[in-house]
């Protein structure tokens, strides 16, 4: 408990410690270093009331913060990895680590999906669980995302994903890498239909995801101040021997460089999604019988 009061110079991995806090405690914001009353943070969607730093959310919290209350119905909740490489490293045997991840995160894998609604608009919603192996993309993540895409396609529903993760699941090696192709292949098919895909990226979102499905939204959206990059800050600094400016590969940086459409504070995401979905889905309904436009 004690070390949450330590000063952290940069964005630390504090979210787990935060989870365990009794509700009568103060916690220190890693960005502005101010003490924030935990209850106040909770009621503010875990956004620092002083500096607007967006603390990480679990998948369940994200669902609560984004979708209409009680509208989420999860599918394939028990799909699990089979440890394709029979992998072990310093941290131990991967198949055993999987159990620990599940215990820590309270989910069977790092990606959840299901039916949901935003302001009454039905959709298929997928979300990463960062607490499960850093939200990394392995075989289960890929399969569930593809099923989410196929479900949306089958039922003519819009697709919204919220992504946060370190990228590929190293312990699944090339199997993990191939999920980039698998998910993009499915997304290609989805996009042949007149259906919108909105991709929301939250802190941190890296290579395996950004270099595949997550950057391919009809609308790419991010929460303020999120790190969204091909490579992590430390990797770039080490390999390029280059000190990165504070705002490098943040949401605002990506917006400036034309890689994303919108930087949206957490509290405004549901209403913005509602607006977009109403417009896109209405346009679909009014021209449903016309053939899908083909590029020459």
């Amino acid at each position, binding site marked *: 408990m004690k070390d949450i009061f330590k000063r952290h110079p940069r964005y630390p991995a504090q979210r787990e410690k935060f989870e365990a806090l009794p509700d009568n405690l103060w916690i220190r914001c890693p960005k502005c270093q101010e003490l924030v009353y935990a209850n106040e943070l909770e009621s503010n969607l875990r956004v620092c009331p002083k500096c607007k730093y967006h603390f990480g959310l679990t998948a369940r919290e994200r669902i609560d913060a984004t979708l209409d209350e009680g509208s989420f119905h999860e599918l394939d909740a*028990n*799909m*699990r*990895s*089979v440890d*394709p*490489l029979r*992998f*072990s*490293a*310093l*941290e131990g045997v991967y198949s055993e680590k999987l159990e620990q991840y599940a215990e820590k995160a309270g989910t069977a894998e790092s990606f959840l999906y299901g039916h949901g609604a935003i302001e009454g608009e039905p959709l298929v919603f997928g979300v990463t669980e960062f607490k499960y192996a850093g939200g990394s993309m392995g*075989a*289960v993540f*890929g*399969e569930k995302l*593809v099923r989410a895409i196929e479900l949306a396609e089958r039922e003519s529903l819009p697709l919204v994903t919220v992504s946060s993760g370190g990228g*590929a699941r*190293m*312990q*699944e*090696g*090339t*199997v*993990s*890498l*191939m*999920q*980039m*192709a*698998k998910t*993009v*292949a499915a997304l*290609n*098919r989805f996009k042949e239909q007149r259906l919108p895909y909105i991709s929301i990226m939250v802190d941190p979102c890296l*290579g*395996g995801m*950004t*270099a*595949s*499905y*997550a*950057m*391919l939204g009809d609308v790419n959206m991010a929460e303020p101040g999120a790190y969204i*990059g*091909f*490579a992590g800050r430390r*990797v*770039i600094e080490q*390999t*390029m021997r*280059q000190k*990165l*400016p504070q705002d*490098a*590969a943040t949401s605002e*940086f990506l917006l400036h*460089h*034309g*890689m994303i459409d919108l930087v949206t504070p957490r509290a405004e995401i549901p209403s913005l999604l509602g607006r977009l979905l109403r417009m896109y889905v209405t346009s679909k309904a009014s021209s449903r019988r016309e053939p899908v436009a083909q590029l020459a």
Partner: protein
Amino acid sequence: MPSLLDFESSLRHLEHELENVRARGSNGSSSEQQERLQAELENQLRGIYASLTAWQKVQVSRHLERPYALDYLQLGFSDFVELHGDRSFADDRAIIGGPAVLDSRTVMVIGQQKGRDTRENVERNFGMPHPEGYRKAERLMKQAERLGIPVVTLIDIPGASASLQDEERGQSEAIASSISTMLALNVPTVAVVIGEGGSGGALAIACADRLYMLEYATFTVASPEAAAAILWRDAVKAPEAAQNMKITADDLMEMGFADGIIPEPIGGAHRDRSAAAKSVTELATRALNELDSLPREELLARRYEKYRDIDFFRE
């Protein structure tokens, strides 16, 4: 004589002897001696290469004299015209491409290109493409599709470039978009990993109907050094990482990601570049013949299923 890798050091004496005999020129007795030494060298090489570890294969795949994409173009294709630029920002020299003739068929070749010396390596960013490289690749793929030309990619990349400038210009988006375009191409596609298949930067031009690997090529989610740094917290554990990450051609076949292994000359492709080029182009030609015979709808359906059917999960 080729530079020897550490596990080949027992050959040093034999290589020197062979070189001396060759230098002395060909009279009857020395040519006989040369043949004998050559046979002995091949014999020993065969022995060493029969049981390479994953890490040793990584070393072969990175051998400084290993044939690169432009070598294959020169030795196995004809009439190659290199096209330049992404029409938006720059010409990336770590990715080369353009039309060429392969066994009387026009193909669009896209290859990742390392440099041979320091100057060329700087020019080619050590074979690590920037976003504009992937955008050039995508442009050439779309051109090939429009003109009905099949695409052949040659993969040899330690990893995509990862600097601040790459983030600014959207490395993630460039790779994602290249993957998307390649998967949807309405022409046959063949990818050959000729050296290193490093991560998403390799996958960007590897999403083909057929993925072949040279015998000592690798395909990996992260370089063994990077994987070791992350999973063993020590980059010197790279050999261990190479073994555990299952990155060799045999591993990729076993997992169902590679469609075939192209045997290399004894002692690796760098010992006989022409023979390596011949093997690559023969297999690519055979693959294109097979793919050409498929109706396009079926070609695309099969390509989709190849990725859709990846399992490795339980319910």
